[in-house]
């Protein structure tokens, strides 16, 4: 008799009709019953291909098995071996291109919902206040980590576990990098980010905020006067790329980074209670269709304008955004304009945006009635570190060059990872940043002769 096929369990979602009224997380996550049912779908393959799809090689098969026998604590410990941020990755990884794309079950039916299961484990750990309890034996070495994004934090995690004393220097007033200032609350609640970071500080990692390395200390000073033995650069690639069209400096045009930072980091959605305004109008065009563009459009929608458009020069299928978020954006009422390029942003008499001239399919011109333009065309390497570190080798675009295996830069003892280094053929993702942070940590430990 054929086995009864259990369908992939869906998580509850907030209803699309009311989502735009608040910043509450959209995906509710599994209940315990749903998690156990979903875990039961896993075939426990002899050759678990899912693991090869995960950049940090979580023992997916193992933790799913532990969920199905309700041993969530062990499941958490299993994930923690490879990934310190299950609640984050479970939410933001593009699973459809990574672990779930490789899942064997996916060949015949829908793959196991690995992301939601991982999130369930991470969230269960949080609710029960489980922490990483690695015993730490100091080895008398010191590491400086520049940047507290996923790359820097993952690197810090492996170093601190190996007994290295770690200080993370962060330029902004809060840690987390894009997780904090970029990805919005309704997709990744900040409470979760800070709680996961708290895990690290409990292990003894020091995080110093407001420290722009290159300005307050140079890398040379970190290695010299400040006597760090090794340095990791995880400064991300946050420098926003411009539109390069007429009108891009008009009032009412801003980068997605500025918009998201005003809303997320500075709580601009709660202006004037919080001091930082956001400054968007009633008809908003977001240019681009990656994760940043989708996040911007959905965030804008929650500030209650009349229309939010996504203007993209390619088609839906070519969007690099997470599939689920594209779907959410459509459900929520973001209006997509495909195969369209911006020709010029039009100004009123006083220097404010009063519309946008566009071209569809390379030929048909049309006017889009907008008063705000948010551009999300990607970002480049931030130049501060390169400019203040003459010996550091960077490529023409400013990305730091590293040795593939160890991720050491042209300066002995100085390593780099995450978005500030470029790996051909990979997407810049949270988990990719974390995997390079971990690889660099191994390189650093080898360099320190402790591995």
């Amino acid at each position, binding site marked *: 008799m054929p086995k009864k096929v259990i369908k992939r369990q869906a998580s509850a979602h907030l209803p699309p009709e009311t989502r735009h009224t608040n910043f509450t997380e959209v995906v509710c996550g599994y209940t315990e019953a749903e998690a156990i049912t979903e875990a039961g779908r896993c075939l426990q393959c002899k050759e678990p291909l899912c693991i090869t799809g995960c950049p940090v090689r979580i023992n997916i098969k193992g933790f799913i098995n532990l969920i199905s026998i309700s041993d969530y604590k062990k499941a958490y410990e299993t994930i923690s071996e490879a990934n310190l941020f299950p609640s984050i990755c479970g939410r933001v990884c593009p699973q459809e291109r990574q672990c779930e794309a490789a899942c064997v079950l996916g060949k015949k039916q829908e793959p196991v919902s690995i992301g939601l299961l991982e999130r369930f484990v991470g969230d269960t750990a949080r609710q029960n206040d489980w922490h990483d309890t690695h015993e730490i034996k100091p080895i008398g070495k010191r590491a400086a980590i520049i940047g507290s994004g996923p790359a820097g934090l993952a690197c810090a995690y492996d170093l601190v576990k190996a007994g290295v004393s770690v200080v993370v220097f962060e*330029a*902004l*007033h809060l840690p987390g990098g894009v997780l904090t*200032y970029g990805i919005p609350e309704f997709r990744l609640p900040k409470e979760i980010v800070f709680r996961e970071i708290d895990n690290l500080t409990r292990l003894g990692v020091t995080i110093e*905020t*407001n*420290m*722009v390395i290159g*300005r*307050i*200390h140079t890398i040379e000073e970190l290695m010299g006067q400040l006597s760090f033995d090794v340095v990791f650069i995880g400064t991300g690639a*946050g*420098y*926003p790329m*411009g539109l390069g069209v007429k009108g891009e*400096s008009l*009032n*009412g045009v*801003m*980068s997605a*980074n*500025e918009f998201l*930072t*005003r809303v997320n980091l*500075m*709580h601009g959605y709660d*202006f*004037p*209670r*919080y*001091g*930082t*305004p956001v*400054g968007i109008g009633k008809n908003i065009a977001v240019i681009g269709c990656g994760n940043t563009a989708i996040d911007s459009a959905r965030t804008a929608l929650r500030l209650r304008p009349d229309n939010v458009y996504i203007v993209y020069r390619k088609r839906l299928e070519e969007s690099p955004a997470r599939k689920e978020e594209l779907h959410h954006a459509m459900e929520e009422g973001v209006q997509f304009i495909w195969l369209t390029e911006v020709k010029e942003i039009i100004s009123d008499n*006083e*220097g404010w945006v009063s519309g946008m001239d566009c071209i569809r399919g390379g030929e048909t011109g049309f006017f889009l009635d907008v008063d705000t333009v948010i551009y999300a065309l990607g970002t480049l390497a*931030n*130049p*501060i570190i390169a400019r203040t570190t003459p010996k550091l080798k960077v490529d023409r675009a400013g990305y730091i060059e590293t040795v593939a295996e160890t991720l050491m830069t042209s300066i002995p003892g100085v390593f780099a990872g995450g978005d500030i280094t470029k790996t051909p053929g990979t997407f810049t993702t949270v988990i990719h940043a974390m995997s390079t942070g971990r690889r660099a940590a191994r390189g650093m430990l080898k360099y320190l002769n402790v591995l």
Partner: protein
Amino acid sequence: MFEITRTEQFSPSTFLWEVRAPEIARAARPGQFVIVHCDEMSERIPLTIADFDAVSGTVTIVIQAAGKSTLDMMAYKAGDRILDIAGPLGEASVIENFGTTVLVGGGLGVAPVYPILRALKLKCCRTISIIGFRSMSLMFWEGRFREYSDETIIVTDDGSYGQQGLVTQPLKRIIMERQIDRVIAIGPLVMMKACAEVTRPLNIKTIISANPIMVDGTGMCGSCRVSIGGEVKFACIDGPDMDGHLVNFDELIIRQKRFHKYEKQSLDLRDAQKSN
């Protein structure tokens, strides 16, 4: 948390803070700025480092109460603490023996000119300072300027002290009369623009300090974009010092109005809370 070690009120709307931040004080150079974030609820505000002392571990900022955030800052007293201060940010001013340099400070701009003046004097530049205020009651740091300037010219809009008029008048006169190698002008945008126009015909290198609206101050948001000779620069990482003859001032002046509507809303809320 960072302690305010001293405050001084220069006038009803201008005041000074000395903040304990030893690492910033050690690294600071003339021309750089800090970003202050007083508490969880407040904005991140860029302010030029008006002085720094590595020995006492303090940085000095001089502030003009222009809107909600800076008015709130006026209420802080010595011993109070602020949540965050990040810096030093931006590229330091180029300090060399340029020969004869004219330093122009307008209003609050007088404060950021001071560390540049001092550093240039220590490099043996011949320094001529022109500092301007709306009125004598707003004047500050005359003594500090006289100490490091070979000549000090003070102008006031209303003639209540020094010469009556605008800073551009003595500037025009001096560059006509003598060989001037460099001009540094800091103050309101219209003043910096006017100074750049005065020196343009004689092609005297003129440095201004761009003060666009900022958020992070680390090159991540692009709020501080300035057009320099047709190229986009970010004032927080490429500046704030810029070549005054290349800056698109008109664009900068318009961009400073980006949040006018909201600034007013903030002030209204502040007034409403006050009267409660």
